[in-house]
C-alpha cells in the first residue's frame, strides 16, 4: 500500500463544459459536447471542441506562449478558483516546494501547423512562431509554472493517451520522497490536424458521435481538454474551511504492453497489470470498487480488449462505463479530465453510464453501465491507455 494523497483543488475544461460543476450537470443531464467536425471538415466525423478557445486571450506578459493548448490550460487555471487555491498553497509551503508535473501528447503543435502554412521565401517559418513556447513539449509546463508563480521542479510527461494519468504517479513519487510538499498535476491536449489526420490514417475516426461499448461502435471522436489538480499529502491542512470528504488518489498502477506501437495486447495483459497494481497500492479488493471509468475510446479493438482486462480483474461484479461520449477522446488530457469526472460522480453519488447506447456489446463480459445509476460511489478506478503500449490506472476515493 502507498499513502493516499489528496486533490485539494480541481478544475477541468472540455467540450462537456467549463468547470467541475458544468461537467456534473452535463453528465446528469446526459448532454454530449460532441459536434460535427468543423475543425478539419474534410475528414468528417465528430469532435469535442471547447467553445470560447478562439476568443480566449492569454495575459499580455505571456503572449509568446499563445497557442490553442496553452489557451485551454489558461482557461482551466482561471476556473474553479484553481489558481487561487495554488496561491494559498504557495504561501503555506513556499514556491520552491510545489512541483509542476503535467501531461500532454501533442503540446502546442497546432501553432507549428499554422506556421508551416505560412512559410516565407526560402522555407523559413514566420518570425512570430515561437517554437520553445508553443510546440516544444515543455511549453505547457513552463506556461503553468510561470502563471502560478511556482519555483519547484517541473517536467512534462508524455506517454500518449496515458500522459495526464501517469503524471499523478510521477508527482506522487516527488511528494512521497520529500522533494516537494505539493504538486500541480493534470495537463492539456488540443485539437490539431496532426492527430485528426493520424487517427484518420489508422481508420479509427467514427463517422457518428463515438459510442464506447456499443456493439456497432465505429471508432473515436477526438476531443480537447485541459484540467489540473493540486496534489498534497493526506494530512495537509485544510485551507478551504470545509469538512466534507476530500477527493483522494488512493493508488495508481502503470505498465507497458511490450506488444505493438498502436494495437493493444490481445488479452489486455498490460491493462490487467496496471489495474492490479493500482488496487494493491490502494489496499482495495476488486469488489471494493464502485465504478470503473473505462479508457473506452469507442474503437473496436480498444473496447473489446479493455473488456477482457476488466473482466479478468473484476469479473462482472463492478459497473464500468466510458464518459468519452460527452467529451470525445481528449488524448493526453483524458487522465485528468476523467479523474475530475470521477470526483464529481463520487461527490454527487451517481455512475455515469455510457452515453448514446441502449445496450452494451453482448460479447462483453464486464458489467457495462448505460444510463445514470443513482447510488453512492466511494471509489473509482480510472483507466488510461496509450500508443506505445503505455497503461495507467488510478484509484480515486473520498477521504474524511
Amino acid at each position: 500500500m502507498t499513502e493516499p494523497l489528496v486533490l485539494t483543488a480541481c478544475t477541468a475544461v472540455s467540450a462537456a463544459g467549463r468547470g467541475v460543476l458544468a461537467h456534473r450537470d452535463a453528465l446528469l443531464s446526459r448532454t454530449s459536447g460532441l459536434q460535427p467536425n468543423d475543425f478539419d471538415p474534410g475528414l468528417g466525423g465528430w469532435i469535442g471542441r471547447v467553445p470560447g478557445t478562439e476568443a480566449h486571450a492569454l495575459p499580455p506578459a505571456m503572449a509568446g506562449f499563445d497557442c490553442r493548448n496553452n489557451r485551454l490550460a489558461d482557461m482551466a487555471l482561471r476556473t474553479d478558483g484553481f489558481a487561487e487555491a495554488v496561491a494559498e498553497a504557495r504561501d503555506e509551503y513556499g514556491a520552491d516546494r510545489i512541483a509542476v508535473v503535467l501531461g500532454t501528447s501533442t503540446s502546442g503543435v497546432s501553432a507549428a501547423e499554422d506556421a508551416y502554412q505560412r512559410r516565407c521565401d526560402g522555407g523559413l517559418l514566420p518570425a512570430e512562431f515561437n517554437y520553445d513556447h508553443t510546440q516544444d513539449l515543455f511549453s505547457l509546463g513552463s506556461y503553468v509554472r510561470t502563471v502560478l508563480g511556482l519555483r519547484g521542479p517541473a517536467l512534462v510527461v508524455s506517454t500518449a493517451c496515458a500522459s495526464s494519468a501517469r503524471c499523478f504517479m510521477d508527482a506522487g513519487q516527488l511528494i512521497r520522497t520529500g522533494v516537494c510538499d505539493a504538486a500541480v498535476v493534470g495537463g492539456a491536449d488540443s485539437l490539431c490536424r496532426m492527430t485528426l489526420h493520424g487517427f484518420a490514417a489508422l481508420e479509427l475516426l467514427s463517422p457518428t458521435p463515438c459510442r464506447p461499448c456499443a456493439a456497432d461502435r465505429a471508432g473515436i471522436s477526438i476531443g480537447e481538454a485541459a484540467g489540473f489538480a493540486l496534489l498534497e499529502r493526506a494530512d495537509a491542512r485544510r485551507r478551504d474551511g470545509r469538512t466534507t470528504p476530500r477527493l483522494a488518489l488512493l493508488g495508481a498502477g502503470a505498465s507497458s504492453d511490450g506488444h505493438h506501437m498502436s494495437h493493444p495486447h490481445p488479452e489486455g495483459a498490460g491493462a490487467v497489470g496496471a489495474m492490479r497494481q493500482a488496487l494493491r497500492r490502494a489496499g482495495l479488493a476488486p469488489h471494493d470498487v464502485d465504478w470503473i471509468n473505462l479508457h473506452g475510446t469507442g474503437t473496436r479493438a480498444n473496447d473489446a480488449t479493455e473488456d477482457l482486462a476488466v473482466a479478468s480483474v473484476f469479473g462482472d461484479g463492478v459497473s464500468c462505463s466510458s464518459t468519452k461520449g460527452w467529451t470525445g477522446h481528449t488524448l493526453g488530457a483524458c487522465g485528468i479530465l476523467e479523474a475530475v469526472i470521477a470526483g464529481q460522480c463520487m461527490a454527487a453519488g451517481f455512475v455515469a453510464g455510457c452515453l448514446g447506447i441502449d445496450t452494451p456489446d453482448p460479447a462483453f463480459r464486464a458489467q457495462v453501465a448505460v444510463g445514470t445509476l443513482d447510488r453512492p460511489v466511494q471509489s473509482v478506478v480510472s483507466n488510461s491507455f496509450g500508443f506505445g503500449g503505455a497503461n495507467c490506472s488510478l484509484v480515486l476515493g473520498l477521504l474524511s
Partner: protein
Amino acid sequence: MTRQRSGLAAGIVGVSVWGPGLEGWDASRPILAGAAPYEPRHSPPPAPAILAPTERRRTGPVVRLALTVAHEAAQNAASSSGLPPGSLRNVFGSSNGDGVVVGGILDALAGARGNERVVSPTAFHNSVHNAAAGYWSIATAGRQPATCLGAHDGTWAAALLKAMVEVAADGEATLLCCYDHPLPTPLAALRPTVSAFGAGLVLAPLGVGQPMATVRVGYCAIPPAPGAWAPRNPALHALAAGNVVAQSLRLLETLALGESDRHALPYLDGRLDLELDVAG
C-alpha cells in the same frame, strides 16, 4: 527558497553513451577519462538488432539513438549486477522527442489539400514522445512501466531527478535513457541541437548489485554557477553546450575516471545538485 532537504541516493549499476565520436561506453571510456583524444565525427546509431525486422524497419534515427543507449546501459547492468533488462523500471527523457517524424508530418500536412490522407499510420504512431520507450518494451518484451518526459533545457536534470525518485519511492532498479536528436529544417533554426547525443544509466537502490558509484541529488531553486556542469575536457564543451542531454558529460567523465565529484546541473530557474562517490 534555499531549503534542500531531499537526500535521494542510488547506485549506478549501468552506463551508456552515444554521440559524435562517442560510440558506446567501452569505446568512449578512454576519451572520457582523458586518456585518448576526442575526435568528433558523424556517428549514426546502428539499426537496433534487438527488434524484430518488421519493427526495426519502422524505426528512424531518433528511436535508434534511444534504443542504442537503452540497450547498452541495460546490458551493462545485466552483466555487472544480474538485473535483466525487462525487470527495470524505465524513465525516458528527451526535449526534442522525434522531431524528424513530427517535422515530416508537418511538411505533409502543409501540402495536404481537402480530405487528402497524407499522414502514414506508422509515422503517426512513431510521432508520440514515448515511441522510443514503446519500441524498447517491445524489444525486451518488458511489462515494466515507462514514464517519458521533457523539460526543455532542463531535460537531463529532470530525467535524472525523476529516475532517482523512482528508485527511492518504490525501491526498484530503473533504466534512465536520455536522448536528443537535431530537429529537421525549418525547426532546426529555432531549436538548435548540434549533434545527436544520448546517455543512459541504470540506477539501483543502495545495496542492490555492484554499483560503480553512488549518486546523490537534491533540487534547489537557485541557478547553478555558470559552467558548473562543464566537462573537464575543453574539447567536449561545444557538445555539452549544444545538446541538452550532453549536460551529462561531466557525470560520464567522472564515471570513466573512477573519481568522486560534485557538480550542479541547470534545471529551469533552479539547479540539481549532484554528488558522485566512487567509494559508495
